[in-house]
């Protein structure tokens, strides 16, 4: 690679490298307050560099222009390529306007989370580690976004998973956080088997891990192998994105600190699958069975997530399930590609991937906003329970933030979520062919209604003053983590925060203001960026109207059902079922954990009693025979003589028999 190209795509590298360096420095200085400055400044620098990249994307890099049509062009990352004889690992990274845009969103959300966390966790003795982990997480996500090499993607993918483990388990003093962290990692890791095998199969065919090579090779060879590989990738994406049947970890994962939830839900982990699948879209399009799997899963997930969100007693859990549902929406366009069978079809419909990425972008903004706002509000009340948060958004900023965020979630026009949702539905409707397409489309429409319902519910809870709930002594039973976590933390929330929240300092306010602005105007802003997304900004009037109508219908329904209380209270005792995610956790235990542990115990027993048995038996037999033969040996001279005689007879007999046998044959 030339010197020149390195300089030209330096900003790309910087978006990955800056958070990485910050993470390392942060870990080294974990106990000192300087870590705050390091990570936040690094987050800012990464944002600047991602922004620069996007702004600069008209400047050609190296030998050619930056592609804007959804295709990617890969350039060397500066890491020397590896040739292992039969496998080339070029370690290349991608340049395209889309990756630049996603990278910008990731950097922005990361910075918001970092800044918010410095306030939110200011009394936590492990704040430094937390911030460093967030930086590492961001670096991993940036790597996934920019990767043009299966292996780099895998690296980012897995590192992100581990960081999520660390972040979710940050408040490790509570059993709930410990369990949630473990569960999230194990579930996603299980799904990642698909990723590993998928990467292996893809690379094995192309003898290279470069996206371009892999796509070029496999597009011409659709078949079982490709189906296996892409199915593997899809399974991994379902896992990381918490889609059915892996959906349950994400709800538990909110046992982590709210900023961590914001990061995981908004721009990184759960959305990573969308990025990867969008970049490998041509392969997906060549593997219809993988798409069918994806379609069924997202269709079920988006409805299930929305239904669950509707009935949660905890608003943070509501947001979590809404994430599950919305990620399914994100993935929906990717599940409805027309199957590509020919050789010459080239890149799969850029519009489709653009719709997915656009929704990801939108979701990142409004979900970050919602999480941070909820976190902000909850800090005063020590709880994220709906019953406790009733009417908590009293101040103007919080009211605006809640309204804008939930409007975006519900998909109302003008705010960013509205644009993106409309694009998704229009795309799916445009592409929908066959059962798969219609299934997804119907699910989408149902989801629009449900989403509007739970968004309305959340808005009503937060904005409407309800009956005053006295501080209950049985906090312990009701709380869902945040509170117990706070109690257990040595100093984090020892002091009552009511007063402090009223005097919330500049930083978190600024974060929420900026996110609110981005959510409100991001969509409009983006419409100006046709070239960035590589699609015509086609706003389909029909679908816009349909969506709006459905959303309003949902909202009205929710309003009506709520009366003057919380809608979810109508569920009565059945709400517990919702809080448990319809018992998925139990199913996991019964279907996977218990059998595996039983198997492990059996194996341990077998290892001790069967595998090792011959060894012990041999040792015991040696000792036994040693004693036996030793004591049978007498010191009688005649025995010695007789043994000589017997030996002679045996020797001669064996010898003669053998000699005769050998002599008899030619």
């Amino acid at each position, binding site marked *: 690679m030339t010197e020149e190209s390195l300089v030209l795509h330096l900003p790309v590298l910087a978006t990955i490298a800056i958070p990485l360096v910050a993470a390392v420095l942060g*870990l080294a200085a974990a106990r000192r307050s300087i870590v705050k400055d390091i990570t936040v400044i690094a987050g800012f620098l990464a944002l600047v560099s991602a922004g620069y990249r996007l702004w600069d994307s008209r400047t050609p890099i190296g030998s050619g222009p930056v592609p804007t049509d959804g295709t990617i062009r890969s350039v060397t990352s500066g890491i020397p390529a590896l040739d292992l*004889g039969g496998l080339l690992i070029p370690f290349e990274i991608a340049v395209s306007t889309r990756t630049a845009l996603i990278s910008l969103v990731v950097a922005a959300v990361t910075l918001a989370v970092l800044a918010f966390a410095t306030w939110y966790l200011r009394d936590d003795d492990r704040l430094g580690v937390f911030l460093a982990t967030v930086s590492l997480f961001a670096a991993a996500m940036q790597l996934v976004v920019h990767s043009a090499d299966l292996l780099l993607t895998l690296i980012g993918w897995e*590192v992100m998973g581990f960081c999520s483990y660390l972040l979710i388990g940050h408040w490790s003093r509570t059993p709930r956080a410990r369990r949630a*962290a473990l569960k999230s990692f194990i579930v996603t890791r299980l799904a990642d*088997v698909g990723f*590993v095998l998928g990467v*292996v199969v893809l690379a094995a065919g192309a003898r290279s891990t470069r996206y371009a090579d892999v796509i070029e090779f496999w597009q011409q060879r659709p078949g079982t192998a490709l189906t296996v590989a892409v199915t593997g990738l899809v399974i991994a994406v379902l896992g990381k994105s918490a889609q059915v049947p892996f959906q349950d970890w994400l709800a538990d994962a909110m046992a982590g600190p709210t900023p961590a939830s914001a990061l995981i839900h908004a721009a990184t982990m759960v959305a990573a699958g969308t990025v990867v699948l969008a970049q490998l879209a041509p392969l997906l399009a060549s593997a219809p069975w993988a798409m069918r799997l994806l379609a069924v899963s997202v269709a079920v997930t988006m409805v299930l997530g929305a239904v669950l969100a509707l009935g949660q007693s905890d608003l943070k859990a509501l947001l979590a399930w809404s994430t599950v549902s919305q990620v399914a929406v994100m993935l929906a366009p990717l599940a409805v590609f027309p199957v590509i069978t020919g050789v010459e079809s080239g890149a799969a419909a850029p519009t489709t991937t653009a719709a997915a990425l656009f929704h990801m972008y939108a979701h990142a903004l409004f979900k970050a906003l919602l999480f941070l706002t909820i976190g902000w509000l909850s800090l005063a009340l020590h709880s994220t329970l709906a019953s406790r948060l009733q009417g908590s958004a009293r101040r103007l900023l919080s009211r605006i933030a809640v309204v804008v965020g939930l409007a975006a979630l519900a998909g109302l026009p003008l705010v960013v979520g509205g644009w993106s949702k409309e694009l998704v539905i229009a795309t799916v409707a445009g592409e929908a062919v066959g059962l798969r397409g219609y299934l997804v489309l119907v699910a989408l429409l149902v989801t629009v209604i449900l989403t509007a319902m739970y968004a309305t519910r959340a808005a009503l809870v937060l904005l409407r003053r309800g009956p005053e709930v006295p501080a209950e002594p049985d906090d312990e039973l009701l709380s869902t983590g945040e509170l117990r976590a706070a109690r257990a933390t040595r100093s984090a929330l020892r002091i009552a925060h009511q007063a402090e929240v009223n005097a919330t300092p500049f930083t978190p306010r600024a974060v929420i203001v900026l996110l609110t602005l981005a959510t409100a105007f991001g969509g409009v802003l983006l419409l100006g960026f046709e070239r960035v997304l590589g699609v015509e900004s086609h706003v389909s009037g029909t679908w816009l109207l349909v969506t709006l109508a459905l959303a309003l219908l949902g909202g009205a329904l929710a309003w009506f059902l709520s009366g003057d209380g919380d809608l979810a209270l109508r569920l009565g005792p059945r709400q517990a079922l919702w809080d448990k995610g319809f018992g998925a956790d139990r199913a996991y235990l019964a279907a996977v954990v218990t059998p595996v542990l039983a198997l492990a115990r059996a194996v341990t027993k077998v290892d001790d009693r069967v595998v090792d048995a011959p060894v012990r038996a041999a040792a015991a037999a040696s000792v036994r025979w040693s004693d036996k033969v030793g004591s049978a040996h007498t010191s009688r001279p005649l025995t010695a003589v007789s043994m000589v005689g017997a030996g002679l007879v045996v020797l001669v007999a064996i010898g003669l028999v053998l000699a005769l046998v050998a002599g008899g044959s030619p």
Partner: protein
Amino acid sequence: MLLAAVAVPVLAGLWLVAAGRGLSRRAALDAALLVALASAGLLAAAMWFGDSFDRAWISAIGIRLSLGIDGISAPLLVLTTVIGLLVVVLARSHTPAGGAPATYLGAVLIATGGALATFAARDAVVFFIAFELVLIPVWLLIHRFGDPHDENARRDAGLRFVLFTVSGSVLMLVGILALVSAAGTSSLDELVAAGATLPLGTQTLVAVLLVAGLAVKVPVFPLHTWLPAAHTTAPTGGSVILAAILLKMGTYGLVRLPVASVPDGFGRIAPVLAVLAAIGIVWGGLVCLVEVEAKRLIAYSSVAHMGFVTLALASGTEVGVQAALIGNIAHGVVSALLFVVIGGLKERWGAVRFDRPLPALREHAPRLGFVLILGLAAALGLPGLAAFWGEFMAIYAAWTSPLGPGLLLKVCAALAALGAVLAAAYALRVARLLWVGETDEPAIPTAADGSREGVQTETLGSERLVLTVLVLAVVAIGIAPHLVWSVTAEDVRVVMTR
């Protein structure tokens, strides 16, 4: 220089074992450190100048005392030297009871020197002799300096270790002799060319003998039952040597002898080896899910990790050999790291068992906790840390392997990928029980003498230095596998593309 790098630790070790009783602890430590440094310096010089050594030794059977360095052995030589040095340094803060410090250090030095000789040997028979040289000192480490609480366990573990290894190595010797007499040369370099031309039957026989023998050392399922016992009882330094150096000798032997010399014969039995490796991966992972003794758990995780290395080798591809080599190094540093942490805790607490509440390391000893979680992350194959490359490439190699009937090796690859999930499960199980602590109010277990006070949990003294080096190695190899692969690439290619 190369000869000196190998001989200095062995001779100095013998001297320390024989005459060191009179030496004070301090003097013994300094002497050992000096020797280890001298050996490291000599080795570095030998590598720099490309030194080799070759002269007739036992003409009766045409054995030449031949030492040399190539890309395949260089990383292992470096690993051995560094680990040897670290174990000597570690002794400054943890000298196991059971005998004179000089005896301990002497045994460590001999074992290190023997391993160096094994990796540097360019003659099959010299390789075998060096292979055996390590036995007695390591037996001494286990038998004399092992777990002071249980004498029977020490005796049993030591004997198990020696007898298992001897059965394997003598079997390997038979294989070596069969190979040497058939090929007419015992030089490893010449065997690469000469062995490949042997008839398939001979090759298969030789490969069976060699693989069966070396499989004990690796260890390959179901020949692994010596490892947990040895690891559990050995002192920390001994465990580190066992895991980071001794096990590597087995896989190195597999690369050097069957894979390089009798490729066709090896190819015929490779599917069996691959299946055993895959079983070992899953087996080790499953046992780790319920094992309650920490060092035993790590030992079983070694079985799983070495399963990846074996699987890679069994693929018979160039990528596979590369994967095995880096997997070797990675497992060396990662297991050394974990054993230093867990072994150190065991020495402080008397035992590390998961069936009783343990203190949250991340609270009580944040530095040690960080190292532990990093080690566990590496053990579960997290990308960016050392073990990832070997394991991922092993799966790749098994998938692309031309050997075996039908989809057999592909199934093995899939099993290995599942094994990675088990690795995650058990690594996080350890993290959950030891790193974050399972009780809300973590208590430090009482010290061996029953007093609660004065139990130092955080790393101290030389241990910190050792852990720092290992952490850096784990991260460096993880981030830049080029460090290893750029060294090995050329020679692996020569060996694999005849």
